[in-house]
């Protein structure tokens, strides 16, 4: 063999050998994902399950104001308690719902809808997979599933309150598995929610059993409170009564009213004895784990965005009831020299809410943060004031309402007066519908600006056969008549950049629910239907 042939052979054989050696490595095509874990191999142990549950909690309000928070405000703006308020900026993301235009294509709604269902998926993943995880502690396993069920029920309840019956998705599904899916009736949604809550109640710990590092986790009491509310919304009074009675029995052990109304929305009283369920916030600037609604609702003259301002109609309700204590802790007015709980403002340096920029020159005291307790930067999602979603005063008032509906007025009065006493108001001693109306007024005043009013107005039946909201809104609604004919409020009358006839376009045959996003109707090929009379 001459050298040339030798060279040739070498140059052919060497690469050929390399090819063989490499191609035999069949793992050349096996490229695992770096830096992330895989769902199929997750849920191996208790720690992984706990982490997933923590991920479910995060969906309660998500991490900023626009997914859920702004819609929470919108619901109060649709009542007689709150204006959109900001009269220097475009209000189109609130306008259609607040002015009852019947337009279904609104931006805030689709965020809310989408993010509630994203939360439901996380819960579904946990509810499906935790039962198959090897975990030595069966109690922990049951509790984790219970927490996921509570959060899922919470999301569905929020959806049903706003939109009526919605599609129920119980698992992580592929798109072809939900083709042709339709909306469930309101009743079957509530049955689904009640079942999840009952499951949760049976396994969750009581609040008094929580160690301090678990404060903020869902308790049996929270699940009971929501279950009671679900029954109340369906007017299933007996069922609600049973749950509420059980809670009232443990008053002082798990829950009670704070002694002073001013403490209720004070950030130093986060997770107080009165709290059943609140969004947990931290002001660590390294992470987006705080709230922002305080900024969204704040005065433009105080670094706020001025969306969601209290009405003079609400103020009047406090004044008419002689309720100075709660008025003080609910509404701050332009030029206030004494903002309760914040020594920053005085005669020389009054609190400003420019009437030209704010429909009513009033802001909420509940979400207000005293200046020296604000995080830096303030206008970010780092505000530490926990958002209260359910508190014991609400339980007491539900209890009163249920007892009244079941003609047990004596028991109703006890609970009602507990709330009034804390507000430094005198006892009432009424019966029947007069008591019913007193309880309804008490709910408005006690829970003002906390995202309850709209759903109360939608569910309450008035004596004239209409829903309460139809007597508040609409051309002859009390709120519209007040603003267009009776009001003497200098701020609201002079600033017509947000028209005072808000609510006059309300229609009872349409506006007891919000429109669902039209994109969802379109995307479902019509199997998901829009609510009646929305365009």
């Amino acid at each position, binding site marked *: 063999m001459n050298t040339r042939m030798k060279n040739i052979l070498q140059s052919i054989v060497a690469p050929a050998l390399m090819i063989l050696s490499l191609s035999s490595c069949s793992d050349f095509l096996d490229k695992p994902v770096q830096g992330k874990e895989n769902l199929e191999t997750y849920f191996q142990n208790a720690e992984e399950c706990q982490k997933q549950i923590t991920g479910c909690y*995060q969906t309660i309000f998500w991490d900023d104001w626009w997914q859920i928070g702004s819609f929470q405000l919108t619901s109060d703006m649709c009542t007689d308690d709150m204006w959109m308020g900001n009269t220097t900026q475009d209000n189109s993301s609130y306008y259609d719902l607040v002015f009852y*235009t019947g337009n279904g294509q609104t*931006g805030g709604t689709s965020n809310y809808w989408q993010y509630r269902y994203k939360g439901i998926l996380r819960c579904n993943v946990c509810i499906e997979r935790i039962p198959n995880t090897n975990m030595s502690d069966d109690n922990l396993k049951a509790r984790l599933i219970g927490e996921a069920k509570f959060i899922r029920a919470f999301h569905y309840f929020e959806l049903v309150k706003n939109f009526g019956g919605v*599609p129920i998705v119980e698992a992580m599904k592929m798109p072809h598995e939900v083709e042709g899916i339709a909306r469930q009736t309101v009743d079957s949604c509530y049955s689904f929610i009640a079942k999840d809550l009952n499951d949760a109640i049976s396994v969750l710990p009581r609040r008094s059993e929580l160690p301090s590092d678990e404060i903020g986790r869902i308790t049996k009491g929270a699940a009971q409170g929501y279950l009671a509310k679900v029954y109340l919304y369906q007017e299933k009074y007996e069922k609600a009564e049973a749950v509420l009675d059980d809670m009232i029995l443990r008053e002082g052990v798990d829950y009670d009213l704070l002694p002073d109304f001013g403490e209720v929305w004070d950030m130093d009283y986060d997770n107080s004895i009165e709290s059943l369920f609140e969004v947990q916030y931290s002001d660590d*600037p390294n992470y987006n784990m705080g709230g922002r609604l305080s900024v969204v609702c704040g005065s433009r003259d105080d670094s706020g965005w001025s969306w969601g301002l209290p009405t003079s109609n609400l103020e009047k309700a406090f004044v008419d009831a002689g309720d100075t204590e709660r008025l003080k802790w609910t509404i701050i007015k332009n030029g206030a020299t004494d903002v309760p709980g914040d020594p920053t403002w005085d005669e020389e340096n009054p609190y400003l809410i420019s009437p030209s920029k704010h429909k009513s020159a009033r802001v909420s005291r509940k979400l207000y943060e005293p200046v020296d307790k604000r995080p830096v930067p303030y206008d970010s999602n780092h505000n530490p004031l926990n958002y209260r979603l359910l508190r014991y005063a609400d339980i007491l008032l539900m209890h009163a309402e249920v007892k009244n509906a079941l003609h047990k007025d004596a028991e109703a009065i006890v609970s009602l007066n507990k709330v009034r006493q804390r507000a430094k108001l005198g006892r009432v001693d009424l019966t029947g519908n007069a008591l019913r109306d007193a309880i309804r007024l008490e709910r408005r005043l006690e829970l003002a600006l906390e995202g309850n009013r709209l759903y109360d107005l939608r569910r309450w039946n008035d004596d004239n056969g209409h829903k309460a909201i139809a007597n508040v809104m609409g051309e002859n609604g009390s709120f519209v008549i007040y603003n267009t004919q009776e009001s003497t409020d200098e701020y609201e009358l002079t600033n*017509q950049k947000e028209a005072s006839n808000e609510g006059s376009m309300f229609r009872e045959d349409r506006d007891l629910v919000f429109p669902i996003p039209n994109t969802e109707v379109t995307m479902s090929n019509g199997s998901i239907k829009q609510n009646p009379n929305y365009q």
Partner: protein
Amino acid sequence: MMKKYILALLCLIPMLVQAQGILVQGTVKLASEDEPLIGVTVQVKGTSNGTITDLDGNYQLQVESKATLVFSMVGFATQEIQVNGRHHIDVNMKEDVTALEEVVVVGYGVVKKSDLTSSISTVKGDDLNSTVSGNPMGALQGKANGVQVTSSGGPGSTPRVVIRGLTTVNGSDPLYVVDGVPVGTNINFLSQNDIQNIEILKDASAAAIYGTRGSNGVILVTTKKGKSGKTAFTFSSSIGFQTLEKPNLADASEYEQVFKQRYINDGNEPIWNVSGNQTTKGTDWWDECINDYALMQNYSIGFQGGNDKQIYSGSLSYYRQNSQYQVGFWEKLTMRYNSELTFNDIVKVGVDINPRYEHWENSPSMLGDIIRMDPTTNVYLPEAEWGDNPYSNFARSNNNQVWNPVASMSRMNNDTKQYAVLMNPYIDIKPIKGLSIRSQFGLNARFQMGDVFTPEFFIDNLEQNALSKIERQTNHWIDWNWNNIATYMTTLAENHNINVMAGFTMEEFNNYWLNGSREDVPSYIKELQQVSAGTMNEKASGSETSTSLMSYLFRAMYNYKQRYYLTASVRVDGSSKFASDNQYATFPAVSGSWRVTSEEWMKDQHVFDNLKIRAGWGRVGNQNISSSSFMSLIGTSSYVFGQAQDRVVGTSVSSVGNASLQWETVEDINLGVDMALLDNRLSITADVFRKESKDMLLEKENMSILGYPAWNGKIWENIGSLRATGWEMSAYWQDKINDFNYNIGFNLSSVKNKAVTLLGDSPIYAQEYNGDYIIRNEEGGELSRFYGYIADGLFQNQTEVNAHTNEHGTLLQPNAQPGDVRFKDLNNDGVLDENDKTYIGKAFPDFTLGINAKCSYKNWDFEANFYGSFGNDIYNTVQYYSGVEGRNVYAGALNKTWHGEGTSTKWPRLSVNEANLNYKRVSSLFVEDGSYLKCKLLQVGYTIPKSVLDDVSIRISLSAQNLFTLTKYSGADPETASLGGATSSGVDYYGYPNPRTYLFGVNVKF
């Protein structure tokens, strides 16, 4: 003289000369240019006796008087001359044009053009160079039929290249292969001066050899190589400027009137904030932000040369384009060197090395903001109110939410650099006659570093950044491929020509990234814009991804007497992007052609100089999805627990995978004809084709109720089948009348893109708009059609509003007032809803046209390129008459919008509440004809005669790109507007228009 010294360095040592017989001497010249040729081999036939020509083209050789001399050189026709006792023989060498030009690069090999059986377009580098474009594909627009190129104008932007319509919704970009190295879907980095040829593999019978990545076609780029002998130096430069056309916007006083009128028309008190700018004209935000001229420059020097042992070429190019804004540019410095060494008849080695440097500052995307911004607002606060932070001295918009664009621009501080090298060492072995084995290792390595600094500033509560931030991201991409190809060619029994190829390739694509940032940098000075200077919130993240492909190739080509041709190929691809059950796929192809003019019975006809009929079938694939799409992944989601409000780390599903994902395949049939007529002066190519995809991959939006983590519920799915059917034709005429040379080419292409089946029959929606979608892609229908209500004129009076009722007399549009749009109750069911929507426009054209003409007379030359798109619509979201959200409007909006009976039939009344949804609803009101014909290039050049400059050829030229556009479209640029993906094209959001560009160019050769 310079060149002679350089040549002297490069010249090889002459071979030994053996003296015998007579001494012959002479000069070898290049026939066409009457220049001496060096390095020509002069050999006595049948012996090893020979020499090569020297610097002046001279040779001398001792030979027998009856010998025959062979003059040879690569790239030139070999000549044999009998000495017949002569002592002086001069020779004129002719360039072997046919041999060079007729070779076409196909995947993993070359074939003679006449042997092609599939549909391949070739564009020569010289035809690209008259247009200056950051991306070589920009210059390709209109030059090849069946290839649709559309650009937008920003520096560094990548044109959209669509080859023969769309059969996938998942990226339309073809695969680019540079000198055998697959480099992905973008060749921004390549200097167009370096391109020798571009081959576009259009049908599947050609592209199937690229298997999984061939479904959008393959573009093969061959860079300039050395040529033995004639060493040439070139220098070319072009320098010029770009301009944008300014839209005619309302001034401050008209803006104020329009703004207030919107409230007045609704019976509301206007929200009006006192103007900071008291002039009636106000601030002209366009002039404040947009420069009249943006500089563009392009320089290149190159050389090529060699001899029969070594060929080489090299170049150095620089390109820079500034944006039309105060900030933003893109520049690239590219080098290329290639060399091939022939050791002997058997072994050849070579390498192309292409190091490069790119540097850019992102161009703002702010045209929309500039147009919307309130003109009554000043740029700056009054000087008395200025503070220490220069970023806070700007004014906040008085009457809308648009951020001050001058302020935004002042804060733009991003800078990205990329260093990269592309190289492909190879060895070529020809152990026996006809067999060639080639092993090539391609490396495409890139290192990128991007810095972003965001200063702290406060203009308003809603326009502020409380903490400055400094961020650096580094990215490494290391991609390699290894091709091993064996080719065997032989001819059996004289008439049977056979060429078979077999190969094995491996490819790996790796990306490594690291990102670090900190906040609260103590100062905004340049020296402190380093991550270490930040004082708070230290953050770092980083990861890597790796994907791989392993493939086996086979191809056989056969022809009988160069009349009947048959080609078959198959590629088996394995990809890491799919679950192990679905990892491998097979892509076969067959094609054939019949060269009619080679038949005996065609010998006597004089109509056709060439007539060839082609047919092909093949399958190609698409795997253009992210590497982990079949897996559901877990990410971090934390929450706060405990009395101390501590962060607790949690997790959640961060992306939902689809375990059943499989390959997308496209099946393609092509019929074509090539002909040359009238003494080769006219050549015509025509093709018809049908491409159909199966198991198409799409990251599809889904119903929100599924709860998927991605926005609008996107996950990867095999969603169905698309079909593109079409035809294309090109005609090319060239002729010469005395000193007047001219040629003109027409390209005409037409393709219809249709959805054949879609997963679960459900339409694909795209382009979300006010809580609805503009585009609906439906089974059986064309892609990217706009779907909405029909705007049926305006209500001119209350009677007309009242008349728009259903049979029960209920108003169809209860919120409407005179001046609002009447929407059609299409199905006459008495309510206006989803069912009244219909298709109101289509994004893709009926046909596209390219016209390219060149002529020259003596020293003058002239070139013109036109590109047109016909029959497409554009959904113009740029609603500049509405003043929605307090935005500024086009001048004349007060008069153009309805303001009383009979004042307008198109633009509805101004309204702040928009109760009738005139501007919010997806309707035909915004659909416009998007057809256009654009003058892409006009160029005139003058070559200074050689007699003036000794040995040096200089050409100077003036050119205008995007000089004018003939269109009815009212927006800025119908070409930019029609961009978008397969299922989401044709919606205009005011992108960066293609600027008009004027250039002065100089080309020097010596």
